[in-house]
């Protein structure tokens, strides 16, 4: 079902992409393709359970958790 919904959104994006291509708006087309690629990648990673095995926000946690804890301690 999840990939049915992905296809639904991707179809909407394809229509937009078609009009961008028709109007020779290369940048818009590129941005749209990039977002679709990111969306499909996230959906695949979620579907395969990768988001349970890895913590996707781990990088942000490593970068900002010490600062946030320092803020809590200093208040």
């Amino acid at each position: 079902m999840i990939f049915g919904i992905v296809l639904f959104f991707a179809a909407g994006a394809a229509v937009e992409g078609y009009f961008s291509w028709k109007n020779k708006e290369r940048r818009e087309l590129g941005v749209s393709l990039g977002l679709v690629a990111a969306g499909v990648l996230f959906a695949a990673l979620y579907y395969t359970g990768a988001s349970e095995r890895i913590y996707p926000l781990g990088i942000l946690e490593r970068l900002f958790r010490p600062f946030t804890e320092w803020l809590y301690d200093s208040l």
Partner: protein
Amino acid sequence: MYEQISRLQFFFLMFWLVIGDGILMIPLTIGQFIIHDSWMVGPIFILGAFAVSVVVHIFVRVFPGENLIDALQTAFGLWLGRVLGGWMLVWMFLNTCLIVRKETLFVTTNYFPNTPIYVPIAVFMVPLIYALYKGVEVVGRLTEIISPWAIATTFVLYLLALQNARFSNVVPVLADGFSPVLKASLVPWMFATNFILALLMVSNLKDPRKVGKDVLISGIVVGLTGLFAELVTTLVTGMIRSATLFPVMEVIRSVRLGYFLERLDPLYVITVITTIFLNVAALFYAMLIALQSLFGCKSYRSFVWSGALAIWTGALFFLENSGMLVDYVIYTAPGYYFVTAFGIPVLAIIVQLVKRRLKRNRPIGRQPAGGRGASAAKP
């Protein structure tokens, strides 16, 4: 030509930008630190909103006519400006994913416990795509229509809940000192940094120079709303509020007048979903404008569907469960938001002012080629 929204519409958009989702998440995070004194967080929130409004006020004067992403390229140059703009864009994306995921958590926990989480998010995204495809003017008008109804409904529900209030729930005042109140204010201050997104809507306002003032007014109203909401929540739920995922929901469920008026929570749910729609619409619009500016596109409408796809799947992938979400909001997001949404615009202002001063002190003679950076060529 960007669509124009009125100051009232902008004020409501800024109000729901924080309250729309804050009414779900902020009572929960406050309850992790304090119970009796939670009402004090509302007025303290205004300090955070004031700080952001000052930044916004100065920003629109230092970078007249430029939105946040363009201004970063003006201040830091083309490449560093683009890198910082990309960093801001990732923040906006994760912020939107977070709000969408919280809305889904609210819906699935209370009403659709057996529905896969990706279905409510997908259903939620479709009208959002339509509204943003129509433009921010339509979202602004929608905000103008919905806001009085949503505010009045919530206010009446809170007033009705006061029949179960116990004054003993808010005393003793400051029993553990002022430190827990400040710690509980950190997450609301984090939400106040969302006001910086006003800098992506400057092109939609007739007089962008008043944007700082409008943000401050929104911040004050949000703070006073928080004071009232937190006071009623604590008066009604007391110690239970720290153990529930949605304390305000428990407050509304407690409303009962005789045998003819009870279970008013559907009214609250309608209000919450509608206002979160406005909240996500404002965030999503800001993200699309940031994308448009960063990549030099003519219009954001060419990637509304693909942006919605990325947000929908991003909300699933990045925030798998409620424990992860709450942990991220309390222990990681405040630092991330302060550095990104507050630190980078402040740094841009400082850099631009220093550049101006250096330029003013430079002896008259041959000027270096290049000029003002990336945005100089833009219309």
